[in-house]
């Protein structure tokens, strides 16, 4: 499937781009992270500590074990600091 992946804040800076489209068969967010991490050091740098990251699938906050079936957009970012 084709997935849009978005990166925000320092995740975006480490990976070096705000968004990309990937072709993947990843079943869960964790599988997707593993695929990306295997690609290049910059992904490894961004994903090295998942406890410091948050993920949203189709604009809803979720967990790393969330399934990706039917998903169109996945976003990775650090804990939010709004307000």
């Amino acid at each position, binding site marked *: 499937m084709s997935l849009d992946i978005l990166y925000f*804040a320092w995740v*975006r800076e480490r990976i070096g781009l705000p968004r990309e489209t990937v072709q993947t068969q990843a079943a869960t967010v964790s599988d997707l992270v593993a695929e990306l991490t295997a690609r290049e050091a910059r992904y490894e740098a961004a994903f090295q500590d998942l406890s410091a990251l948050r993920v949203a699938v189709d604009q809803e906050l979720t967990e790393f074990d969330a399934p990706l079936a039917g998903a169109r957009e996945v976003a990775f970012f650090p*804990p939010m*600091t709004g*307000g």
Partner: protein
Amino acid sequence: MEVRVQAGPFDIGAEISRFTEGRTDMGAIVTFSGLVRDSAAGDLRHMEIEHYPAMTAPAIEKIAAEAVSRWSLGDAMVIHRHGRLAPGEQIMMVATAAPHRADAFAAAEFLMDYLKSRAPFWKKEVTAEGAAWVAAKDEDEAALTRW
């Protein structure tokens, strides 16, 4: 219920007037506004706020709807800015209107606690020393457990 995410400034007085105009059923209005606070060293040049456009307004609307359902509120509003902001500038505001003050206060605090940790904004501080992302505070995450 109104939620706005915008780059430009807002006039809190005009917003409060509009929010309360013509209502005679609300006795209590609480507002919170967040300002860009200078660094301890006093060398903050500006703050940059990044957000996730497709998610931001829906996430805030969900939080605001939750507040309206949990307390006896007449209305709630949230404005949050993004982009570059100078020290002292307004970052955001919330307002709540209720017949009684306890509901207005509780709902405003609830909105702030959730906006801090659940709305997709990220702050970066740019000082003479360079740029640094603001780290989330454990106490902000812990604040959610009280609701």
